[in-house]
């Protein structure tokens, strides 16, 4: 596979296609009903809107199911159920009992992990390897972690009592559907709040499966309500007057609208918004590992990750070598059927998102950057984008400034520490960043000066229920995960 060249660098040879036998995960291990209603007050209820919309498999555009479109009246019903459950049941329940319900949900997710992974991949287009090894176990772990907090809140905030807020309205994105539901619901329940959660328009299915799990766990009716719909449903939830808390994960654009909409109300708000992470490679870094980290940083989940390492800064002295390695590695990524266990890069989540990505590919070229993409074949049907990188990118280029939310890497170079800090922090976003260097003092110098809520040093895209996650600046506020993730769901009062 490898031929050794004179200058002692190894060139991988992909002329002969490395054929992997297809290793398809079986759809039969998952049950998807032809139609889903709204999960309100512990039951699946027909929508008052009487409307349903289809959800499709983005890798082949086949319809998977149809789900209810909640209108304002439906949102009202859900909030009413959540309020009643809060007042009558949940806030009165002993904290240790609350904990056990949440533990139960974690356990059932683990039991149904395979089914959930398959549905996540079918509905969202992400590789089964990612939903199986990351999304679903991480979702279960998140419930398990926060379950344990429920009866320990008096230890979380010194000299303060942590009181629940009431009803939390939660809106989640389509890139990690079940995991984002877990990130939202688990801390809210642990702190004694009840929930109305709206799943994303293009990926409603695992949230509805979670509703079934919640039913199975015998969670008191109304404590968690799960509704489906698009932007209008979300707006109805945000504007509802009997909600105490809004938690939103999504674009900065919508986040700003929500922040504005909550003006003049007492709703507590947390936002987890967009990002344009700088991933920085110094000349003394372990370059092969750095290349792996960069690839994982930008092509994980087709780059549809708010904390994706979409701006790569390479120290000039090693830029040529790193770019070559990246191009080689790009070529070896397996793009195709998300259900195939060999697949590295799956389908783009929706036609709309694909169009956005394609718009940026054009912009990048118009601005004078050099585009390089994998030569892989793409399936005929579905929404696909080749893993792509741009070289000769200028700091001011839109592909280096704006969040693309796709498998598109912008590569820039730098010379000095001060220069790279200036460039990396020169962004309205501040969600995440990456640093690659073998020098310990340099790592801490960089991680301290980077204005970002999560900094990965010699690694990238790692997540854990115990590790707080969230942004600086226009990437939002509030943290999810860890002790800090409790804060957005409580009012602190003096002891």
């Amino acid at each position, binding site marked *: 596979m490898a031929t050794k060249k004179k200058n002692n660098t190894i060139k991988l040879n992909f002329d002969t296609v490395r054929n992997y036998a297809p290793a398809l995960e079986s759809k039969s291990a998952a049950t998807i009903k032809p139609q889903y209603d709204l999960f309100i007050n512990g039951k699946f209820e027909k929508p008052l809107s009487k409307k349903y919309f289809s959800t499709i498999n983005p890798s082949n555009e086949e319809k998977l199911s149809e789900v209810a479109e909640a209108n304002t009246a439906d949102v009202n019903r859900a909030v009413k159920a959540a309020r009643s459950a809060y007042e009558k049941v949940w806030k009165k329940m002993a904290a240790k009992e609350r904990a056990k319900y949440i533990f139960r949900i974690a356990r059932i997710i683990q039991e149904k992990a395979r089914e959930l992974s398959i549905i996540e991949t079918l509905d969202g287009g992400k590789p089964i390897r990612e939903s199986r090894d990351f999304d679903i176990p991480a979702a279960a772990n998140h419930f398990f972690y926060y379950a344990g907090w429920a009866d320990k809140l008096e230890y979380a905030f010194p000299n303060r009592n942590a009181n629940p807020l009431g009803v939390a309205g939660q809106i989640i994105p389509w890139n990690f559907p079940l995991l984002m539901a877990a990130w939202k619901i688990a801390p809210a329940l642990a702190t004694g709040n009840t929930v109305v959660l709206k799943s994303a328009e293009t990926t409603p299915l695992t949230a509805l499966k979670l509703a079934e799990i919640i039913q199975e766990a015998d969670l008191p009716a109304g404590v968690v309500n799960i509704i489906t719909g698009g932007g209008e449903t979300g707006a109805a939830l945000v504007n509802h007057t009997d909600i105490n808390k809004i938690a939103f994960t999504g674009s900065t654009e919508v986040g700003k609208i929500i922040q504005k909409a909550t003006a003049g109300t007492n709703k507590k708000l947390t936002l987890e918004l967009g990002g344009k992470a700088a991933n920085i490679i110094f000349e003394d870094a*372990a370059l092969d590992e750095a290349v792996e980290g960069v690839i994982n940083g930008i092509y994980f989940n087709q780059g549809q990750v708010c904390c994706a390492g979409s701006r790569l800064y390479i120290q000039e002295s090693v830029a040529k070598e790193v770019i070559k390695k990246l191009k080689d590695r790009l070529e070896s990524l397996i793009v195709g059927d998300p259900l195939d266990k060999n697949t590295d890069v799956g389908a783009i989540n929706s036609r709309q998102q694909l169009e956005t990505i394609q718009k940026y590919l054009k912009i990048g070229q118009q601005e004078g950057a050099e585009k390089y993409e994998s030569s892989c074949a793409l399936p005929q049907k579905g929404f696909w984008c080749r893993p792509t990188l741009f070289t000769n990118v200028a700091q001011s280029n839109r592909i280096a400034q704006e969040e693309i939310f796709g498998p598109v890497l912008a590569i820039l170079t730098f010379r000095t520490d001060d220069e790279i800090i200036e460039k990396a922090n020169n962004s309205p976003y501040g969600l995440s960043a990456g640093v690659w260097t073998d020098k310990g003092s340099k790592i801490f110098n960089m991680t301290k000066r980077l204005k970002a809520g999560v900094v990965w040093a010699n690694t990238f895209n790692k997540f854990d229920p115990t590790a707080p996650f969230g942004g600086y600046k226009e990437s939002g506020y509030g943290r999810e995960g860890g002790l800090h993730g409790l804060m957005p769901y409580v009012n602190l009062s003096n002891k």
Partner: protein
Amino acid sequence: MSKTISVKNKSNSQRLEVLKTYKIYIGGQFPRTESGRFYTPLDATGKKLANVCLSSRKDFRDAVVVARNACSSWGNRAAFNRSQILYRMAEMLEGRKLQFIDELMQQGSSKIKAKEEVALSIDRLIYYSGWCDKYQQLFSSVNPVASSHFNFSVPEPTGVVSIIAPQSSSLLGLVSVIAPVIAGGNTCIVLSSETKPLCAITFAEVINSSDVPAGVVNILTGKVAELAPWFVAHMDVNATIYCEADKAMQKMFKEKSAMNVKRIFFYDKIDWTKEKGQSPYFIFDTQEIKTTWHPIEPIGASGGGY
């Protein structure tokens, strides 16, 4: 001729008082407002307090520039050093107690109340001086992640904070909102109480003689209604603090804060004279939590995603 007058004055034991010009405080200097405007707050009896700078949007913008420039040196300074500087502020305030008591009385306070307010303000600075190198341990965590990584979260200053100081509490309110913000390593631009601005400017003199680097605290005087929208709309301000219960104003703050996802805090239910008027949670408000990851094992063995 002039000799005669001075002799005459002396003989009547009358000396013409030197009135203080109250100027604003930007970047460690005391300029007049660039607008050249002034307003004249009155005391309770309707007597003129002083001609005070009616600061403009441009003054505020200038202050944001110097506050931003001061951010990294102040935020990266040793916490112990910040602690000493806040302590120094308390020392300076202690030494000038009488002046503040005098000004508070001019602004309508009784002597007892004025003494109390100054004493509380000094103690509040001492309180936050002590927190400068302690809140980090209170609000940070080492996170026991399941993978083989060393993982920790620490608070860091959010950046530039704009503050509309409490309107009714001229000195204590001002000190209570500035101290936690700068103890946490932020820099700030503060609009003083509109009707009682004297202490704010005199407090700027305390700051100026306490080794607080230029630009860390900037103090303007002027009209809340005029300046508040700019305080919250500026794109290079990270957080805004407003201390009144005015619902329409709060709505305006929240709406404009959305432009750059500004952090916004309403301290409208706080009695600054009480114990509840001070806490490390005020420091926490203008902090960001940063989580840092590093592999524990040789990175090649940590199992990349691909």
